[in-house]
């Protein structure tokens, strides 16, 4: 009896850790729930109910004894697709019976503690390059490529910096987009850049909450109403912060 109870708790710990990593890394709600149920089922807990929202996971497992329920809070959410893919791979291996509960927990712990596969400067460079490319995609001229490259890269770097300084998303996004607006204004007024609008749109793209918006609508359509609305609110807040930052720049001239 005692053994069985302990095992149920162990299964729950593995499921919750997997769910937590996935949710924090930006996976869709249905994927988190599905993965947790699959892991539980392959360890022998066939009756489980995960309830996933962007800010917390409730998980209960039914067995012979009274139902056990656990809750964990999710505070920080980022986008880390590598982790989503790794947890997905581990869940596949668990389903195939390749891991015991303990091994699975150790593997998941390793993923949760691993850092980003790219260094900070690779991130900034990627943001800079994508800003330049977006400028061309939105029919900008090649002469504006360099201003957008610099503005986008510095804008993204400042987003990371401000977020470290004050861990409030709205503030860091607002400051970063304000900085982008000012840089674009500087480039245009010195004659290095041509079209102000195109430069700003291109450089703002790395901040745009594209993943959040689509995840929000998909969650809503899949029936996860609370997650959908919460993610929609998150996306709206980000869009508003970016817009407000740019708007302040426009009020300068």
């Amino acid at each position: 009896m005692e053994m069985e109870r302990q095992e149920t708790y162990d299964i729950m710990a593995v499921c919750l850790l997997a769910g937590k990593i996935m949710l924090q890394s930006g996976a869709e709600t249905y994927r988190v729930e599905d993965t947790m149920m699959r892991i539980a089922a392959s360890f022998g807990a066939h009756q489980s109910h995960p309830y996933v929202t962007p800010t917390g996971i409730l998980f209960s497992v039914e067995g012979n004894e009274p139902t056990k329920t656990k809750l964990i809070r999710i505070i920080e959410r980022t986008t880390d697709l590598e982790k989503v893919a790794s947890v997905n791979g581990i869940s596949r291996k668990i389903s195939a019976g390749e891991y015991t509960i303990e091994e699975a927990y150790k593997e998941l712990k390793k993923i949760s503690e691993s850092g980003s596969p790219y260094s900070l400067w690779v991130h900034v460079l990627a943001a800079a390059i994508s800003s330049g490319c977006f400028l061309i995609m939105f029919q900008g001229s090649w002469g504006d490529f360099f201003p957008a490259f610099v503005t986008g890269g510095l804008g993204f770097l400042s987003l990371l910096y401000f977020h470290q300084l004050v861990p409030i998303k709205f503030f860091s996004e607002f400051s970063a987009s304000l900085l982008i607006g000012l840089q674009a204004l500087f480039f245009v007024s010195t004659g290095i850049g041509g079209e102000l609008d195109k430069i700003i749109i291109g450089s703002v793209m790395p901040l745009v909450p594209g993943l959040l918006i689509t995840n929000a609508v998909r969650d809503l359509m899949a029936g996860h109403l609370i997650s959908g609305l919460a993610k929609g609110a998150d996306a709206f807040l980000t869009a508003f912060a970016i817009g407000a930052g740019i708007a302040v720049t426009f009020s300068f001239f």
Partner: protein
Amino acid sequence: MTIIEQLLTSFIASAAFVIIFNGPKRSLFHCGLVGMVGWIFYFLLEANGVDMVLATVIAAFSIAIASQYFAKKYKTPVIIYSVAGIIPLVPGGIAYNAMRNFVQNDYNLAINLAAKAFMISGSIAIGLVFSEVINQIIRKSKLKTIVNKSQ
């Protein structure tokens, strides 16, 4: 010439976005391809006078098909590919213009643009979901034929 330029920049932009989102290194190339396919559909349709919303739905649909193909082939979550693909379609430019008009007190035009941005983000989601539904229908109907055969 414009087409080549668009193909190249959309490929690079989508792949760079996957780096920003910490995507797995081995899927960078495929993500770039997915983004390129989606953007070129959108670009060509829009250049030929198709309505923006419809062009977005078709582009999102093609992105979802390509993503599902890669996801199945490389056993990775479909979201990695679809995110890379939809980023170029996100109506950043329109939302920006809406905001700009709000600030310049031209509310009529601003609301107009904001509604358009909302429509386009909705149509991205519809394109993705629609293709997922079709995929599920195909999978289920295949399952049925297998079940029927085994009986």
